């Protein structure tokens, strides 16, 4: 029974959520005290002088994880329409999906063998 009207309550919810968030941010801006000092506005580093900034390079594994996520998530999304129509597609659909999952697992196996998901040190 879905009609375009079904999406209107989502907009109402968005209005309420945004209204709350914006009001809160503006209210705290005026409510709290304002006694700013140089030290207070420095980034926190365990109480010692902060050195450099945080725009530093970090482990490439995080990038690899992100790229693999994009690949696998797209394949997961592919499976949603199939899952909804699973009963109607019957045995043929099931076998076709087994083939798809087989190819997916092949790629997954390759990724693991290449060590892309290896986070522990090996020495």
């Amino acid at each position, binding site marked *: 029974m879905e009609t375009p009207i079904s999406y209107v309550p989502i907009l109402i919810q968005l209005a*309420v959520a945004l209204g*709350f968030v914006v009001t809160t941010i503006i209210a705290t801006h005026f409510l709290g005290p304002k006694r700013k000092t140089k030290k207070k506005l420095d980034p926190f580093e365990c109480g010692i002088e902060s050195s450099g900034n945080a725009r530093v390079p970090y482990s490439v594994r995080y990038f690899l994880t992100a790229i693999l996520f994009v690949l696998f*998530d797209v394949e997961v999304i592919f499976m949603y329409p199939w899952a909804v129509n699973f009963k109607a597609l019957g045995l043929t659909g099931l076998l076709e999906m087994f083939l798809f999952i087989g190819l997916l697992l092949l790629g997954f196996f390759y990724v693991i063998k290449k060590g892309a998901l290896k986070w522990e040190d090996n020495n």
Partner: protein
Amino acid sequence: MENYYLFKIILVVALFVVSLVVAMYSTFAERKISALMQDRLGPNRAGPFGLLQPLADGIKMFMKEEIIPNVSNKTLFILGPCLAMTTALMAGVLIPWGGKVEFMGKPYDLQVTDLNIGVLYIFGVTSLGVYGIMIGGWASNNKYSLMGAIRASAQMISYEIAMGLAIIALIMSTGTMSLGEIAAQQDAGLANIVYQPLGFLIFLICAFAELNRAPFDMPESESELIGGYHTEYSSMKLGLFLFAEYINMFISSAVIVTFYFGGYNFPFQNEINEALGLSTNMATALGTLVMFGKIFFFIFFFMWIRWTLPRFRYDQLMRLGWKSLIPLAILNILITGVVMWMNGKLN
């Protein structure tokens, strides 16, 4: 038509208030439960049994000085917590909170809206939550925040795959992505947990990781990263981050209950409603009460685990997510498919 919108607006506002109150008292419950488990008293000064503590905390958050570090990206710094809170509030729209309600002589579902892409919507909106944490942590220009933010994003996206695969098996057996229908299907028959025990387990573990709750709370592990992605935040901006976390916990519990534990349905509901002679609205209210009971159990469960298990190491977390949960979830899909085929559920 005006009544339709009036009903929806009332429901949206009610849902908003309930989410906030549940989130507020979850912080209180968390402190009381941790106190119980560590043989302490917990907060007991503000009001009877410390019941006004969440209010006191809220007022304190509002009255604190707002600090924006001078090296941060100001716009993104403010945008981070706003995004986290907005996405947390948006996720609850599709949860069916009860059966039919009579409002001005017309029956409505006790659900803000029901979309046939419901599961995808929830999946998408909760995924957006990672942006709040990532933007906030990066914009702080603090090393701890950056570490917390990148850990959080890698963790959340990793567990999203396993979570998506666990839901696929559920959709195979329900044949719909609308949450209203998933809840309604469990009305007569058994709850989905009976058909999807492995799927439920995977979903639950992923929910812990998505919420950055212990034992997967590396993004804000206080012993090494100070506060993780919200180290630099103060006043209500910190409050929004914390609030978003507890609202997400509430919504996740509601989603788990709807997907696997029958939502607002309970055993022998028709017999009980008939025996008590309840009207439509009263029967729905009873169902909603039962649903909240289930939700509170899961919120308690989240806290129970947090104060029981120690934190994982990051490589263990990644190994569990990628090398155990994803293969298990795929296995679950295969088992579901074969079992349904053998039981002659396919055409």
